[in-house]
């Protein structure tokens, strides 16, 4: 008896659906709409709990960081509420069988479906635990690798590509420094992208970029292969005179050695040198940062300190990831800086990203800044899947 009714119901639904198809709209049965992964729904409970804890903290004492965090979580949760209500609206509308109302209901569903898809996209993105420093601006460091002057030219091309990308995204940027060797070729470029959250987009650029093309200087028309190394760091400090005091305090005096590149001699009134370079050695890690682009020595020092903090933050982030992987008994991948992540093949007008096996057949569009996002989005998608898989792994082992 029950099965009969069910049968009847389902055929009825098919009928309704048939009608709806007839009205030439493209609507899906609620169960066919994309769904949130159950683990992400579990995260909602965790976030609700977090929110409560934060609000207790805020009651006793105002703190800007806690407040921002609170606002962020509550906006995610309200997105989730909105998502739920859109979903139930769609289901309700779908269940309307009154022939007079079906047309309106169908219209309504057509309007709601894109909203539903947008919300689920956003929730998919926001409900997963964020990567460390995702909200930060970033710093891109570029160095030529193998290939001599052609590698230097390619490094410059990459710098230009990221600058164009900033224009495309309407992001503010500054070239922190650009050093040339004694033949006038670039041997280091550091770009700061001052948009909060840009780290989360640009971080996929870290690694070795390889170019295959005929250098301008090549007379026999042979294709050369050269490389440039890109390192993306989260920007922790502004690196100006006002952040210098705080940045200096961040380190214990015996942790760092500050060197000024100055010729010997009496100094003071005796000389009027313009050399204002500053070099900082971080003794525990051996990291060395040098800044010389500013005429002002304190400004060089401030920039060097900020760069050092970014480098240490990135190391800290990678160590944390590796630690978590080791808890999961996963292979700890030493982010091998010699791994080629991408090839720019000019003769074939092709850029291939080896991590996601994606090829873009528009080098010019990428270098001009507006197509790079296609590669990055692909990488983001893959990264998301990996992170979701890790989240699932974490739950199943618990």
């Amino acid at each position: 008896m029950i099965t009969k009714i069910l049968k009847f119901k389902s055929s009825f639904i098919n009928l309704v659906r048939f009608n709806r198809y007839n009205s030439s709209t493209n609507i899906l049965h609620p169960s066919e709409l994309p769904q949130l992964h159950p683990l992400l729904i579990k995260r909602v409970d965790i976030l609700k709990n977090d929110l409560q804890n934060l609000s207790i903290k805020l009651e006793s004492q105002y703190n800007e960081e806690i407040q921002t965090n609170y606002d962020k979580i509550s906006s995610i949760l309200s997105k989730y509420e909105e998502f739920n209500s859109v979903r139930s609206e769609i289901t309700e509308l779908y269940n309307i069988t009154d022939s007079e109302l079906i047309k309106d209901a169908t219209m309504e569903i057509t309007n709601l479906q894109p909203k539903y898809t947008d919300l689920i996209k956003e929730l998919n993105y926001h409900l997963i635990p964020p990567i460390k420093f995702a909200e930060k601006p970033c710093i891109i460091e570029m160095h030529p690798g193998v290939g001599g002057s052609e590698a230097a030219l390619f490094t410059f091309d990459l710098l230009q590509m990221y600058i164009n990308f900033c224009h495309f995204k309407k992001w503010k940027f500054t070239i922190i420094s650009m050093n040339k060797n004694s033949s006038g070729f670039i041997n280091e470029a550091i770009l700061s992208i001052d948009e909060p959250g840009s780290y989360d987009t640009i971080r996929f650029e870290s690694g070795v970029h390889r170019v295959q093309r005929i250098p301008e200087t090549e007379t026999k028309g042979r294709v050369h292969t050269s490389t440039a190394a890109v390192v993306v760091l989260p920007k922790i400090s502004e690196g100006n005179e006002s952040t210098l005091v705080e940045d200096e305090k961040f380190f214990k005096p015996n942790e760092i050695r500050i060197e000024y590149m100055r010729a010997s001699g009496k100094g003071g009134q005796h000389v009027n040198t313009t050399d204002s370079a500053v070099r900082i050695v971080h003794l525990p890690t051996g990291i060395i940062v040098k800044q010389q682009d500013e005429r002002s020595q304190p400004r060089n020092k401030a920039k060097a300190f900020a760069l050092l903090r970014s480098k240490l933050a990135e190391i800290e982030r990678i160590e944390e990831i590796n630690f978590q992987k080791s808890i999961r008994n996963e292979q700890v991948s030493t982010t091998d800086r010699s791994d080629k992540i991408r090839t720019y093949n000019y003769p074939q007008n092709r850029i291939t990203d080896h991590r996601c096996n994606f090829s873009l057949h528009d080098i010019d569009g990428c270098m001009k800044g507006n197509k790079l996002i296609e590669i990055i989005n692909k990488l983001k998608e893959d990264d998301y899947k990996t992170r979701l898989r890790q989240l699932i792994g974490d739950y199943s082992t618990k």
Partner: protein
Amino acid sequence: MTRVTAKLIRQARSISPYLPPLLPANRSINQALLELKWIKCELPKNEWRKAVNKRLKWVPLQYILKTQPFGNLNILCKDGVLIPRWETEEWCMKLANLIKGLKLEKLSMIDACTGTGCISLLINDELKSTATNLDIHGFDVSGKAYDLAKENNEFHHLSVNFHLGDVFDEEILDKLQLTDVNLITSNPPYIPEEDYNKSVLLNGVSKSVKLHEPKLALVGNGEFYYNLLYNLVFPSSADGFVFELGYKEQADLVNEVAKLNGWRVGYMKDSAEKIRCVLGWKADGKFKSLKDLCSYVY
């Protein structure tokens, strides 16, 4: 320091035609490239050629670009007035931070031998947004320095009072009508005549300094410190002083004279580990924490 060889010049020319003239004053392509970048950033294109040619004649870059960064200020520089040095900037920032920490009700300060005015202007700038009332004065014997200091004051919208005056004038305090003073600073000329004539390798001055900066701002010795103490520090109500110097003997002299008058004295080194300032304070005066800036206390 590399020698400027024909090869180096050729190499420089292959990078930019503006580069070779910058080599003698810079000695390395790296530093010359930086100077060229600053020239290109700060001057219109039609002045680049003239600028690098001036530099070939050892004109200080600071006179060519007409400024020198000094803390948060960009001090205007002109021919005839000494260019502010990074060593001065360094101790001046330390002093400013120390004064900030004191949370004084009022700071009355005199900067003797003020030149561009950089010391007094930086202190003024660093303290202007604190609760401390400021009454800051600077004086110099050179008319060019006096004019430029006033120009810098206006350029930075600050409120230092500048005067013409001579450290060797016994009545200088009365003439300036400044008796209620608590801090005296100075970066007087401190290069002994015999060193002024030596090469930079023998503790002398560099070619660019010798050829283009005023001798009046450079040559001096013990007599300046002696007069700073007798004409300014002792007759005023000051309870702190900071004088820049270049030689340990100068610090010793200040200690000898000041300790007899009830002062505690110490000296401080700069970040290149060179002796750079002599500091004095009263044992239980407002500025006794000047001691914390010292690397050695007598």
